[in-house]
Structures are given as C-alpha cells and as structure tokens.
C-alpha cells in the first residue's frame, strides 16, 4: 500500500501580481518501506511538498492520501491525531525541547497521544537503544553533539507506530561523517513498514534514497531509474 500519495497537488500563495506557484500538479506515490528523496534548488517547492505530505498545510488543489485515506475528508482533530500517531518530522534544526532529556523528548509524542508516562518512557528507551543511542537517553539536548541531537530527533520521529518519516534537510549543519550517520539511520528506519521522504539540495544525502525525484519551479521534472546490480557498477573497474 502507498504510505502517502499526492495527486495533482498544486499550491499557490498570495494573489494577483504577488501570486507564487509553489507547487504545480505534483503527482507522487511513496510506497511502504520506500525512501524517496526530493531534490531541488532553493525555492523549488521542496519544503512546501513536505508540509503538504505531512498534512501541516492544505493544497490549493489536488488531493493527499495517507495510507489510502483522503486528507481533505478529515477533520482538524483527525489530522492532528494522524500526525501524532503516524507521521514523524525531522527538521534541520532538530527542534528538541531543551528542558527534557533525550528519552523524554522521544517519549513526548506518545505521552501527548495518551500513552502513560512509564510505558512511553520504556518505548522511548527501546527506540534509542535500537538506534545505538542508549548512552544519550539521560542527557539534555545541550549535552549532546549536533549529530547526536539529530539522531535523537530521528528516534522521536519513528517512536510508536509511525509509518511516515518526513525530513527537511536533515543533515543541514552537520559535517559529512555525522550526515552519513543520520542518513544511515533514516535508511534503516525505512526498511520495513515505514516510508520516508527526505527533501534536500544535497546529492550525497539524496543518494541514500531508493528513488530521487527532481523538483524544479514547483514541478516534478524527472526521477531516477531503478539501479543495476552492484556487480554491473564495479565491472569497468574490474576490467582495468
């Protein structure tokens, strides 16, 4: 089943001479377990695409389906519940709450959704452990490095029964080693029933995705083809 589907999505801001077309008739299907990167320059509509896929914003026209359910038919409360339970967001600047430890940050979405504190904390701890972040659990955000903070933010985005991970330039300010750590984590999170969309201008990040979709001036202009086998890739080297 498609984790999320955008059907003919357009988004306009402003009116008259100030009108801006952020997205124009975008069609995009992301299957469960698939990691898709949306690549484009600043102003191409990447972030708008992500906020619409995450039901934070409505399209001007077109429809968004999350696991087959049309978002336009949902009430505000339904959408808020969908975001709390099913969708995880990762932003460039981490957005961790400074007064909470790593595990409390990770457990927070569960607690907001009515899970009791002890169970939420246990699940938060389990996710941190599964992502190799057990040491970070009791520390506050300002006691973590940039790379650790972003990995905790990814743990928060996948805790509970989430099936859609949305990331906006997730390794923006990180060096290449930490950026690789973040993408390895996102890659491994998207291997079962979790789908992911990463928007970025950085090809090294996008290359972790199963599929790269190219956005230009609000339109999907191209996408990558499925890969040949690694053996085919190494062939020219073996002939040297």
């Amino acid at each position, binding site marked *: 089943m498609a984790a999320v589907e955008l059907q003919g999505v357009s988004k306009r801001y402003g009116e008259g001479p100030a009108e801006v077309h952020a997205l124009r008739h975008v069609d995009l299907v992301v299957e469960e377990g698939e990691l898709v990167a949306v*690549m484009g*320059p600043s102003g191409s509509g990447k972030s708008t695409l992500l906020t619409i896929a995450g039901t934070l914003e409505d399209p001007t026209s077109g429809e968004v389906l999350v696991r087959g359910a049309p978002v336009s038919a949902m009430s505000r409360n339904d959408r808020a519940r969908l975001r709390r339970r099913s969708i995880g967001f990762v932003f460039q600047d981490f957005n961790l709450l400074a007064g909470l430890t790593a595990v409390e940050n990770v457990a927070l979405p569960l607690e907001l959704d009515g899970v009791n504190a002890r169970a939420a904390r246990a699940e938060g701890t389990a996710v941190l452990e599964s992502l190799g972040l057990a040491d970070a659990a009791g520390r506050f955000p300002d006691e973590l490095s940039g790379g650790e903070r972003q990995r905790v933010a990814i743990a928060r985005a996948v805790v509970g029964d989430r099936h859609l991970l949305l990331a906006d330039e997730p390794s923006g300010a990180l060096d*290449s080693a930490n950026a690789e750590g973040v993408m*390895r984590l996102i*890659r491994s999170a998207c291997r079962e029933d979790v789908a992911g969309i990463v928007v970025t*201008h950085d*090809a*090294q990040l*996008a*290359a*972790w*995705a199963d599929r*790269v979709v*190219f956005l*230009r001036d609000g339109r999907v*202009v*191209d*996408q*990558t*083809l499925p*890969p*040949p086998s*690694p053996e085919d*890739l*190494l062939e020219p*080297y*073996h002939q*040297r």
Partner: protein
Amino acid sequence: MSVPHALLALLSEGPKYGLQLRQDFEARTGEVWPLNVGQVYTTLQRLERDGLVASDSGTEDGPQRHFRITPAGEAELAAWLQTPPDLSSPPRDELVIKVLVAARLPGVDVHQVIQVHRRHLVELMQQWTRIKDDGGAGDLGLGLAVDAELFRLDSVIRWLDAADGRLKRAALEPPDQPPASPLPRRRRRVGAR
C-alpha cells in the same frame, strides 16, 4: 592510481609475498580496484630493478618469493605521499563542452540537457552509496574509496546546479554585447610554477 607506490606502502609494513600483496591491496581499497597477479609481479620486478624493493636472494621467481622495501623505496614512498597529483591543468571535460555547446545551440533546451546528466550522476551516486551501505560503517578501505567516488560525482552535480542557475539568470538579463564564442577565448593557466 599508482600501483607501484601502493605496493611500496604495503611492503613498508614488513616483507610480503606477491600473492599476499595482491590480497592486501584489494582489501585496503575495499576491493574497488582489483589487481591481477601478473600486474603485481611485473610491478615488483620494475621496483626491484630500480632498487626500491629487494627480494630473497637464491630463491626462484614464484609465489614463495619474499619482497621487502629498501631505504631508497622508503624515501620514494615518503616523497610520493607529499607530492600533489597534477590537478592543475584543466582536463578536457566532455560534460563541460556539452553544456557550453547546448547553451548556444538553437532549439536545444540546455536545462533539459543538464537534467539528463544530473540524473545520471545521482543514479551513480545511489549505486555507490548502496555499496557503502551494504559494506557497513566498519569497512574502512571501502568507505574511503567509495567516498572518493561520491565526492567526485557530487562536485560535478554541484557544477551542473551552478551552471543551471547561471544560465537561468543570464536568460533573464540578456547581455548588451553580442554573444561571445561558446568556448573561453583565452586559456588561463592555473598552478604553473
């Protein structure tokens, strides 16, 4: 890729047989650059002729022959590590020529030409990233060799992105002067000493 210097580097760890050198070389480069055994022995013979390696005297050619690095070989290796490879002369980059030509050719959408190449490069990067991912974070040789490919391809994509933006801006602001020739008029030299 300098095979002689790579072999000197491996011999600087201690004496080795030819076959062992080949296995070590492939392991250290993440098996991205395979060597055939003939290449190893030819290179070793040349290094021995030049006095950079020595082999056990009295033994026959073959897999049981031990090679070791000489003091001259150590000096050669140290000098090679510090010598910058020749990156200064502009290579005849086919992609640059294609974009320069597409930018001037009537009826050709240069942005579409750029996108075809951008997609191809991203697909190559996806394949390398998959090899790195499958190898795990612990394979140092593979990580280093694949990163070199990824950074090289990434730099070409960045150039394409910059060219795309530059061409877009240029289209919005038509030049006052008639268009110049599609190739730079003067070849500027960088890195000449």
